[in-house]
């Protein structure tokens, strides 16, 4: 059964590393739903966070193939791990009538979304949170009239380190 998997690939920040990753996934017939690449606290290390929709056995092969890249230090599929914080960011531009504005602002407040810009016919809102929260917000504001939105794709970080035995380290 296909389901969404979030995969964190830790790589050496070498030229063309993103092309290597995307090329590999394409070559092996895997589709990328979203990908973020960004530097980490160590300038030599990049993290690439991929969301792919595939069955478990395919994911195992994706992880192995990604590991084979010479520049790959670590690959983790965090989908079935509960110790990761996953976040996404969205900016939406909504077509808004004067009479609906209060409702929308109230809804935004409930979601901790921020209004960035308001003009006569549109409003721009930003929101961050876990992907489910983003999805829910999109559904709730859809009736107001979405002009466009852009999502960041998922990014993630481990909440705590697990020891080798799989037990919690510290709290």
């Amino acid at each position, binding site marked *: 059964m296909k389901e969404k998997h979030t995969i964190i690939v830790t*790589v*050496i920040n070498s*030229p*063309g590393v993103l*092309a*290597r990753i995307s*090329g*590999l996934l394409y*070559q092996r017939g895997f589709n990328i739903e979203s990908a973020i690449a960004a530097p980490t606290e160590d300038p030599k290390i990049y993290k690439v966070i991929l969301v792919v929709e595939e069955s478990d*056995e395919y994911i*195992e*092969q994706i992880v*192995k*193939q990604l*590991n*084979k*890249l*010479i*520049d*790959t*230090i670590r690959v983790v599929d965090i989908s079935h791990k509960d110790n990761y914080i996953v976040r996404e960011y969205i900016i939406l531009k909504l077509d808004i009538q004067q009479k609906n504005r209060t409702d929308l602002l109230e809804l935004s407040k409930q979601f901790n979304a921020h209004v960035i810009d308001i003009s006569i016919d549109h409003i721009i809102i930003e929101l961050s949170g876990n992907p489910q929260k983003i999805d829910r917000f999109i559904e709730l504001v859809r009736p107001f009239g979405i002009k466009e939105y852009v999502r960041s794709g998922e990014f993630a970080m481990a909440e705590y380190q697990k020891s080798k035995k799989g037990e919690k380290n510290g709290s």
Partner: protein
Amino acid sequence: MNGAEILIDALKKEGVNTIFGYPGGVVIPIFDVLYSTPDIRFVLTRHEQGATHAADGYSRSTGKVGVCLVTSGPGATNTITGIATAKLDSSPLVVISGQVHTSNIGSDAFQETDMIGLTRSICKHNYLVKDVHDLAKTIKEAFYIAKSGRPGPVSIDLPVNVQNAKVKNYTYPETIDLPGYKPVLEGNTLQIEKLARAIEQAKKPLLYTGGGIIAANATDSLLALLDKTQIPIVVTLMGLGSVPYDHPCYLGMPGMHGTIAANKALMECDLLIAVGVRFDDRVTGPPHLFANQATIAHIDIDPAEIGKNVKTHLPVVGDAKYVLEELYRHVKPRLPDAWNERTTYWKKQYPLTYRKSKDGLISPQSVIDKLNDFVGPETLVVTDVGQHQMWAAMYYHHQKPRHFLSSGGLGTMGFGLPAAIGASIGNPQKPVVCISGDGSIQMNIQELATCSINHLPIKILIINNTYLGMVRQWQDLFWNKKYSQVCLKQGPTCPPDCTGDPKTCPFEYIPDFVKVAEAYNIKGLRASTPEEVIPVLKEGIETQGPVLMEFMVSREENVFPMVSAGKPLSDIMTGDKP
């Protein structure tokens, strides 16, 4: 020192004494250094594809990294097929291509191609060296990556200004720091013990081994294990020679053109021990029907191969030599039993046989069969791709590893002659035989010049059926005998529905291979009837220097046994009985 001098010094430090290649505009600085480097032999091929296959043949036959040097643009793109061939068969190469000036990269400059982009999916790793200070480190890493773990080709793209750039303090690095690349050599002991127990419990164990045995130099370890356990074994095309053809446990090659004994054993075994193989579709047929009575153990150095095509029950990631030696220590001796009797029975009951030709021409299998009488275990046999390749795999008496070279994974027509050149240069004391077809040989026939000029004593056998025989065989068996574009005599006046009756065909074969050989100052011989086969082989093999022997064989002989694509291994076509 400049970049070009650093490159050559680095190659020497890596033990390189032979480079195959072709010069061009942006690599002149490197060739300028080679001009005064007598301790490196540069082999000038006639095409960059030939250079890459030659480096590959050199590598496969010697176990060393093959090195290839070409220019940018067309020089670089001409290596692509050679690099892909090496990748699919895990052959270690370092391919150095020139590149335009770094300031011109991306401007569609003269002879500029994006070599990194082009080779990304067909090499183990690649580098574009933009700073001369990274050059030495890059060479060191490239050689390490090419030969360690699962070997493979590494491409290095070297801009002309980096070749010319000066460096004050150059030292060749002694260590390598690749945090993302740490091949696992030592297989997990618990898994190996589990495998040893599984062997003891199995009633019908079977070994299935391939190119990984040769890459890991694990032949002796495998033979020791066979000695101790007497487990019947099937060996893939890439592994031929790792078990002598007359070994009592040996059942032959498995798969599409495998022996009946090998395929029957695969379908019936209850424990399959796969070592250094990748469950290629030409071996397995439909994966879910492959060895479906068996618990499958898979030993491989590449974790991504485990479970890729066929579900594995007992994985061991590690070097084949290490794991087989550990397995040898842990496994209890096993004596030949009913299972051995059964597999030996199959071997005797269904030997490889071929019929005498009915058309007065030579039966192609007989050429290989008789070749066995003229060559010894030291002979290196290199093939091209097609029917002749399968017949060579089946009928040649394989005795030693690294003595049978063939393009398995990519199936590259044109591999044979240049690879034989590389093998001959890497093994000057050994006889080399190149078995080719009339189609394949023409894909790199220009390398006859390289062969002739370097006085390489390669004996080239062309099995000429005037067809692209393997495709014709498929059209014969599965496409209602519609021979579309497979007859090499076909011209514009031929009837479209011609089924190739040689009696009615008015055309001569083009080219005349004997004359072609003579044009290259190579002795050319032709056998047109079965009676001429032995005299031609005798004269050809006994003649000093390169010889081309053409054998006019039955036009429509097919390779049997055969399992059709998509069918399970139990579904074997045997063709006509002799």
